[in-house]
């Protein structure tokens, strides 16, 4: 198999959240990024944070299908991590110059902006769900995220039947949707694609 095909298969696996693909990419790239961060005033924990964020950017890119195979996965992860770490350093005003090896890096600014915006949306959702409290939080997570059906949910949450669980879920959902659409209309997503 030629290397280009190999990368394509990895990216398809990544987009499906296939553990094997994630593991391969992780194993092949982690130490490079770790040295980049550690050689530039970071700790091992920083390295993990930055690397995982870069993996999420790559994941989003792979899912959108716009990843250009003219650029290798390795190059892309390096470029994103480097950019993210530079940003972090500048925020902490620890450093204002250049880091790592700028040869052969690819432009990733737009992808990172897109990622930051999406990240903010997800954080908002996470917070909104958290603020609902129990039992709403667990109920909605079970139905919408873990995709359990109403019978299972009724059983595990101790409702007498699926209808009761449905009523409770409905009330919780209305609260969440209200929070969600308030934020939504307040414009985080005005400029969405």
């Amino acid at each position: 198999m030629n290397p280009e095909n190999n990368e394509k298969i990895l990216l398809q696996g990544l987009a499906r959240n296939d553990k094997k693909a994630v593991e391969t990419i992780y194993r092949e790239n982690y130490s490079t990024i770790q040295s980049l961060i550690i050689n530039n005033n970071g700790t091992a924990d920083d390295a993990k944070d930055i690397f995982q964020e870069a993996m999420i950017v790559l994941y989003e890119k792979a899912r959108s299908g716009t990843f250009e195979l003219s650029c290798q996965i390795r190059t892309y992860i390096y470029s994103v991590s480097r950019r993210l770490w530079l940003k972090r350093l500048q925020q902490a005003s620890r450093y204002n110059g250049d880091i790592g090896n700028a040869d052969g890096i690819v432009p990733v600014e737009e992808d990172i902006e897109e990622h930051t915006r999406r990240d903010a949306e997800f954080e908002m959702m996470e917070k909104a769900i958290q603020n609902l409290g129990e039992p709403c939080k667990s109920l909605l997570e079970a139905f919408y995220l873990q995709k359990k059906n109403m019978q299972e949910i009724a059983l595990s949450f101790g409702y007498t039947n699926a209808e009761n669980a449905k009523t409770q879920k409905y009330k919780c959902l209305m609260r969440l949707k209200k929070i969600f659409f308030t934020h939504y209309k307040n414009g985080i997503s005005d400029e969405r694609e």
Partner: protein
Amino acid sequence: MKENNDIMILDAVERYIRGEMNPDERLYFENLRKTNGELDQLVVEHTLFLQQMNRFGEWKKFQSTLNDVHIDLAQQGKINADKLKGKARVAYLWNRYKRVAAIAASIAGLTALTFTSLVWSISPKPPAASEVEQLKKEVINIKNNARQQDKELKNVKDKINTPAKDIVYKTGGTGFIIDGKGYLVTNAHVVENAKNVAVQNSKGTDYITKVVYIDKQRDIAILKIEDDNFKPLGTIPYAVSKNSADLAEPIFTLGYPRNDNDIVYGQGYLSAKSGFNGDTLSCQIEIAANRGNSGSPILNSNGEIVGILSAREAEAEGVVFALQAKHIYNALTELKKDTSFQRVKLSTKSSLTGLDRPQQVKKVEDYVFMVKVN
């Protein structure tokens, strides 16, 4: 009645979006949608919401995959993570001291030569050999003492013919790892007045341990494993929550309440936000617990530690109090005032979210230890 209708409509909308309607129903629904603007609006709006929910769910799943992969690879030694060592540590220290040295040099206007010697002089030196020797000797002494004591205990046991374990367990409890370098949290009353403390993992291996912080009032203590045989545990699967748990939130715990070294699982829920007599440091939970459960972690369904079990005041059956997890943060801040503990760090990301309970327990059990005291 109106609410029932709304629930029915939303249910239909969801089934429609998910493609779960049969063809007849679908046709009927689509016609209705054409003639009813309100319904059409609801479909559009709900589609958008469900899309966002789905993507959010996938994002969370991907994050937990990343954490899993990180832990797996680190444990298999395929990535060199979590602890700085060898070259990485040298580079890290070098970079830190380089900056200090550069500033010093520019202030004093020193020449390149003195600059070099300055770097030399402030570079970390290896501890003197005699110190290491001494430490080792002390460890060996402690080990010998422990062995001697074990022997004595055994003698006593043989003589009076009752299991020696009873003696250990009377003052034993549970503790859990908060930093893979070997830091654990338990209740202060578990290790109070202890001469020697050891912890034992779920596989039965013992490690010599020191109490590095104790706060009797809040009933919290931090231990550090100081044993040559201990290998750092890598990334911790659970997070320590800064928020308090919600009323009725399902929780679970792992601990060593029995006399047979086996780890025991228990589940329950948060029953009151305050503790005994309105004590705001703690909260009340409904869970089966024994004295040996003292110091057990209380986790919520996302794998976040929300409390430390403190069975001390348990009198009524099933009613137990737990210290809120935010006090772990407070204790750590106190501990860090001692500069040798600066690098202790709590985990704030859980990799257990979305896993089912047996999987969560499997991942957590390696990080829960029995605390033994004499």
